[in-house]
């Protein structure tokens, strides 16, 4: 029986290296057979206080492939939150109706708080700008699947490294696997020093760049993220840098055969569509891996794997 049984997942750091690998191993089983009917007579609550496409639908798809039932809401407007109900009351109420709660909420730290008041486990599907651990696990799954290992890889993280929560979680997780980090961002969107400290504490190396073309050829993974114009205090500054972080197909010409391009999606223009047909593009398969990883988590937390 899994050590993950009954435990909430709020932050990727809640799991040890062994526990992360355990989830990825279970997910492999779901990739081989997605229709494992483990959730017969189980009810999973899906509480999305803000909109989401991939995360919500992949959780709901995960539950339904396993034969479970889903209850919940897809926006705060259709719940009692609109009437002013507190998060605590919502969680305590919904925990009466379900075995597990999947929650996305725009407030930072709301997931940790929910896990402290809830009698059933919580899976954090994103709490504001803070954590999104299931994205991190599916990123790790995608990296391991395409590279055959998580150890000793050269990983380029590209784009908004300052505000991108997926990047921060990924750095924390990959620091367990002896990665070398290549950080590509505009000056104003560099990785925060608190996150770099994770790399330093693990005695790993990182290199910083401002030009994407400087790193492509040596990488095992190129992890692209969206740069949002509104993050720049000066719009002119954004105009100056935005094109330096767009990956197009010709830039991959001399890259390793085994390199894969990942992106948490949604993409805007940071990966040109001409990359989509290149076998090195992996972002849509990456999104599909989210279903297997979420199935694995639900099964492990409910003690069914």
């Amino acid at each position, binding site marked *: 029986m899994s050590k993950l049984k009954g435990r909430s997942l709020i932050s990727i750091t809640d799991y040890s290296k062994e526990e992360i690998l355990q989830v990825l191993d279970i997910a492999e089983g779901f990739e081989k057979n997605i229709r494992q009917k483990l959730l017969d007579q189980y009810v999973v609550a899906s509480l999305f206080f803000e909109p989401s496409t991939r995360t919500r639908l992949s959780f709901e798809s995960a539950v339904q492939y396993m034969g479970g039932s889903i209850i919940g809401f897809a926006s705060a407007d259709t719940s009692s939150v609109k009437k002013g109900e507190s998060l605590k009351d919502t969680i305590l109420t919904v925990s009466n109706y379900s075995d597990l709660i999947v929650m996305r909420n725009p407030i930072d730290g*709301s997931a940790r708080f929910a896990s402290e008041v809830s009698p059933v486990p919580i899976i954090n599907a994103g709490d*504001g700008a803070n954590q999104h651990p299931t994205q991190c696990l599916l990123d790790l799954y995608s990296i391991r699947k395409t590279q055959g290992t998580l150890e000793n890889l050269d990983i380029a993280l590209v784009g908004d490294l300052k505000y991108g929560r997926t990047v921060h979680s990924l750095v924390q997780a990959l620091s367990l696997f002896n990665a070398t980090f290549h950080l590509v961002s505009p000056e104003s969107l560099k990785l925060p020093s608190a996150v770099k400290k994770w790399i330093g504490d693990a005695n790993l190396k990182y290199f910083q760049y401002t030009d994407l073309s400087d790193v492509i050829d040596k990488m095992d993974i190129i992890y692209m993220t969206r740069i949002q114009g509104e993050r720049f205090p000066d719009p002119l500054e954004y105009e100056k840098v935005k094109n330096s972080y767009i990956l197009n197909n010709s830039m991959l010409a001399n890259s390793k055969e085994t390199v894969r391009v990942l992106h948490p999606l949604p993409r805007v223009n940071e990966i040109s569509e001409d990359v989509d047909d290149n076998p090195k593009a992996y972002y849509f398969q990456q999104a599909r891996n989210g279903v297997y990883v979420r199935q694995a988590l639900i099964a492990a937390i409910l003690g069914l794997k």
Partner: protein
Amino acid sequence: MKNKRTELIVSAISNGTVIDHIQTDNTFRVFKILGLENTDHQVYFGTNLTSSKYGKKGLIKISDKFFEKEDINKIALVAPTATLIEIRDYVIVKKEMVSTPDTIEKIVKCYNPKCVTNNQQVFTKFNVITDHKGNMKLSCHYCEKTMDKSHIEFL
């Protein structure tokens, strides 16, 4: 001579707690942390007192009041140099430096306006950490944001 002068300014107490060697600018913050504005106990305090160690210092004496170590250690957040002295029947029975606790609960506000503690009825909780330069920082248990001393605001 110095000791005598302190004695003249701030009366001796027979029983209670003396908090000495507070950085003088932080005397009122210590006052606030310990809720001394609302206490029924006799409280004496001084600021800008002469200190051989720090030049100037603050000092607070509270009659018939003894603090739990955990409470008094909150002082370390704003006055890490403070000394805690317990007096019983005019005799010093305990004298020790304050030390920073591992966690701080309910007394400091999270500086992140989007933190759940600023949006729902949730008590704040922080882990006290040290950065690579040795500076003390508070890491919010909920939103995981780290704030340095300059952002500390007491509730």
